[in-house]
């Protein structure tokens, strides 16, 4: 699981840390407080590590927009702490990038390191001023020694250390196991341009459900091809049935060459096929969330921005249950942003993180102690943190630190 994610100097963020809940972490805050910036910063890291040829078009095109307006020379820094089952210690990955908006390459690595929880267990450390610059001479040191090497300019070393189990695992997680969903309007509806773009992309690089919901057919088709996953298809149908009682089944049109997802509606005693793209926006959005949560292989982290958008309030409990269940059933932690009191009321307050914009800077931290106590004492319902007693971030003065 991801224990913490710290980012410095990304858009409105000077220095912010998300301490993740093991199950569901929820970012709450007003519009323009920086919630999306936090997620964008995580997305930038993921796409950067994938390599320039793999990075999303958006990141390549817009990275200059990520440079903080008031600190254009500041270094973009990441510190990620992961706890993976195959290692008895947490793994800490640090990356420092110099953004060069006016030059090419636009980003260079200044410093990079991976450790197994302490300096003694450092896997590697790369610094710009290191004496050794030949990456071919790199040797992974035995425990207790640090390999000091020079960074390789534009590329991070993390994905280029094939004999390091730790590096391989962290690279795999940070590039392939972060589902950072930003479902657009018109999600899962056929659009010729999107299909052309998407087909090319899928051929080059298949990695489950993509941020914009593309790949849904592959992901859902996997449920029909793999006997271990077939029950998931029926389970998703059962969940969708609670949204629309007419829905009895969800299938692909042709098991061997699926071109669309078809829902079986029970109408007048007959089971009639309806194309998924004909379903309502809200219905398709719920479907996309379920697909993300049940996809195989599972992500380590599924992030959803405002999952309530377009969805009937009555479905909030279903979504909340599924978010919690995903973590319980080892299908990944969940990170959410929300403005929905109804959704928030179904989620445990322990995962709440408050995002505030103060003097142009995004701050994030746990809920103020007094409000946590009020939730425990049932003076407040979690949802009321959005509309009755607005969530406040714990600060140093009242005991808990917020970044």
């Amino acid at each position, binding site marked *: 699981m991801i224990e913490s994610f710290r980012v410095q100097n990304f858009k409105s963020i000077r220095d912010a840390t998300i301490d993740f809940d093991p199950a569901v972490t929820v970012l709450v805050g007003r519009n323009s407080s920086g919630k999306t910036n936090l997620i964008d910063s995580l997305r930038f890291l993921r796409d950067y590590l994938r390599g320039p040829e793999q990075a999303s078009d958006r990141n390549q095109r817009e990275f200059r927009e990520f440079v903080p307006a008031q600190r254009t020379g500041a270094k973009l820094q990441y510190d990620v702490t992961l706890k993976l089952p195959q290692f008895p210690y947490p793994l800490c990955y640090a990356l420092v990038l110099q953004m060069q908006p006016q030059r090419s390459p636009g980003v260079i690595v200044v410093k990079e390191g991976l450790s197994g929880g302490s300096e003694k267990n450092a896997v590697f450390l790369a610094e710009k001023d290191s004496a050794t610059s030949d990456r071919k001479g790199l040797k992974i040191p035995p425990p207790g020694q640090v390999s000091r090497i020079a960074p390789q300019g534009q590329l991070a070393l993390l994905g280029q250390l094939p004999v390091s189990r730790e590096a391989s695992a962290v690279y795999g997680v940070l590039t392939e196991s972060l589902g950072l969903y930003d479902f657009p309007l018109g999600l899962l509806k056929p659009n010729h341009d999107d299909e052309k773009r998407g087909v090319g992309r899928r051929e080059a690089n298949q990695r489950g459900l993509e941020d914009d919901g593309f790949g849904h057919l592959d992901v859902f088709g996997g449920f029909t091809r793999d006997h271990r996953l077939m029950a998931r298809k029926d389970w998703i149908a059962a969940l969708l049935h609670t949204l629309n009682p007419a829905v009895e089944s969800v299938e692909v049109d042709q098991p061997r060459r699926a071109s669309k997802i078809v829902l079986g509606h029970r109408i007048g005693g007959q089971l009639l096929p309806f194309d998924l793209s004909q379903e309502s926006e809200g219905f398709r959005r719920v479907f996309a969330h379920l697909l993300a949560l049940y996809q195989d292989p599972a992500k380590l982290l599924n992030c959803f921005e405002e999952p309530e958008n377009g969805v009937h309030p009555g479905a909030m409990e279903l979504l909340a249950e599924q978010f919690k269940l995903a973590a319980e059933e080892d299908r990944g932690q969940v990170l959410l942003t929300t403005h929905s009191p109804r959704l928030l009321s179904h989620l445990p307050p322990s995962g709440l993180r408050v995002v505030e914009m103060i003097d142009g800077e995004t701050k994030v931290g746990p809920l103020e102690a*007094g409000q946590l*106590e*009020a939730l425990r004492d*049932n*003076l*407040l319902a979690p949802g*009321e943190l959005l*509309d*009755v*007693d*607005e969530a*406040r971030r714990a600060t140093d003065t*009242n005991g808990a630190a917020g970044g």
Partner: protein
Amino acid sequence: MAESANDAECLAWHLDARLQVEGGFDAAYVDKRSPILQCALPKVISGGTLKFWRDKLELAIRRPGTGAVILLTDGDGPQRVRDAPDYDALNGGKNDYCPAAMARWLAAAARKQVGDRDVSVGVAIACREYENWLAAGAMQADDERLATVETRRDGKGLLKEVLGTSYTATVSQAAMTRDADWEAIASRCRSFRHLDTTIGSLIDAMQSGKPTVRPQVDG
């Protein structure tokens, strides 16, 4: 405690204005950062048990440094108060809506909630809507509508009618509050005088160190 962020901003303005007049800033300051909202009367009294009111009041009392809590809410809403014998008793055995009885009912519950803690509580209910007060301030002295300005329903509609322009609470309420002639409004609206008196009582209580609950209730 107020219905909306606009209402809370306006209430804070009234509190600051009165603190300035009374020279009360040595005894108190207004916490504007975190008002407790959604305190519309139907919600505050829902179910007849005043759970929402008691819970949110407790929330406010527990905040570090709280010396007084004030609720300002519109009285335009409930027609009847059901399943609330305590209210009926304060209202002469009837369950129809009476802002004065309503305020006393909330105050009585507040007194129990506060107990022996050093916190004062005030309850103020606009007879209909806050906008009725603004309309009263915008009318000429010879305006015939003054006779019913406080009790007329749809205060926002009345205000638009008086102004002859559009009115949007989120944009205009706080600005109009700052510019309004509150002396004139006090002379025209009894429920505003109650607010003013309540604020004064809370400031006195904090200055003297003798907590109070307003309106006063027996016991």
